[in-house]
């Protein structure tokens, strides 16, 4: 990911992508729209680019828009027949079938109660219908998905979640130097943390929340003194 800092506004035509699309395939991510052969931004924020030919707008946002394949944190809201309603921070609740857990059968239901936290993958996402989650992979194994017990949960902006999930993000490595911990970051701007003691967990949450307003460029500088946030 290159640190291009061109900020685009909704409605801006982006001619650079149009030029590129004449010669090769271009992937338009969230925040970009195509109208015939013109590319127009639909969100405000810095335009990001990844080789080869992937573009998206990294706008500041707190409302999650479900997209197929995303890994999200959700809170179980209620049980509705065969489905559980899960709040994933989107405009509508998502649903997860009781069969979408490892080793679940009609007789052997998963033990999920309202208020439980789950880490799940978005299976279906459409603007018009309720999005659907699963807690198993394609071969029916749990993998990293499932219910998150204990720990501490808090919300942040989608940008912070995405920043933590970049490959080689220095933040988590910097925190690892201080404490052993376990974390689940959803791209829907929700974070769950667990450390050996409650005090440590809350300190970690403070340290991560402190990064809320920082950009990708400044993050390296700040990671040096993340330890200070842990002390307070």
């Amino acid at each position, binding site marked *: *990911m290159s640190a291009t800092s061109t900020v685009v506004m909704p409605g801006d035509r982006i001619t650079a992508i149009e030029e590129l699309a004449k010669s090769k*395939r271009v992937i338009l*991510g969230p925040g970009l729209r195509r109208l015939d052969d013109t590319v127009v931004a639909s969100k405000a924020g810095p335009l990001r680019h990844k080789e080869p030919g992937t573009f998206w707008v990294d706008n500041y946002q707190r409302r999650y828009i479900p997209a197929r394949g*995303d890994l999200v944190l959700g809170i179980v809201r209620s049980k509705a027949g065969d489905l559980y309603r899960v709040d994933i921070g989107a405009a509508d609740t998502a649903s997860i079938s009781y069969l979408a857990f490892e080793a679940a059968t009609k007789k052997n239901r998963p033990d999920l109660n309202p208020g439980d936290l789950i880490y799940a993958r978005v299976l279906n996402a459409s603007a018009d219908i309720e999005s659907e989650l699963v807690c198993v992979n394609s071969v029916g194994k749990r993998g990293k998905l499932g219910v998150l017990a204990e720990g501490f949960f808090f919300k942040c902006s989608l940008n912070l979640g995405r920043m933590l999930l970049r490959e080689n993000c220095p933040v988590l490595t910097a925190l690892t130097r201080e404490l*052993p911990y*376990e974390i689940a970051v959803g791209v829907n701007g929700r974070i769950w943390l667990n450390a050996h003691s409650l005090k440590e967990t809350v300190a970690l949450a403070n340290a991560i929340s402190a990064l809320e307003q920082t950009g990708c460029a400044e993050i390296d500088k700040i990671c040096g003194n993340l330890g200070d946030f842990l002390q307070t």
Partner: protein
Amino acid sequence: MPAKSKPRLSRGVLDMKFMQRTKVKVEKEADDEQSRALYSHEINQKMLNSTSNFVLESSYSICAGLIDGRLSFRGMNPELELLMEQELAEKQGNTRPEQPKEVSDQDMVKAFYANKAPTVTGSMSKKFNTKKDFKRKQVGEDSGNPHAKKRQHFKKPRSDDD
């Protein structure tokens, strides 16, 4: 009626039990044709033939190549760390070129058979032997030593033995 109308199977034939699969196929074809006819005046040549270089992808995680967000560090959740390690190994296995071998496969085989294989290969090959092989082997052994194979008969004791 157009000259080239396709011959169709009658309903009586399609209702027969062994024609059920064909029936489904025929129905689907008819359906497709109907929908094509319905929208044909709305689909223009540009829609049919245009090739676009744009691919739309609505997920940030795929666009930006984000990692899985479930992580554990320094032994907090050993089960999870094992998974992470496996994933990492898989990733590196895909990217790293194959390491050069210090001992070639052939040398390895030779050394293996010389050192400890005789017993292993013997007992294993026995498992895959057929009765025929077994007999042939016996015959082969016997042909080298013809006296061993003489069929045992009852020998009448000589009268002067006792």
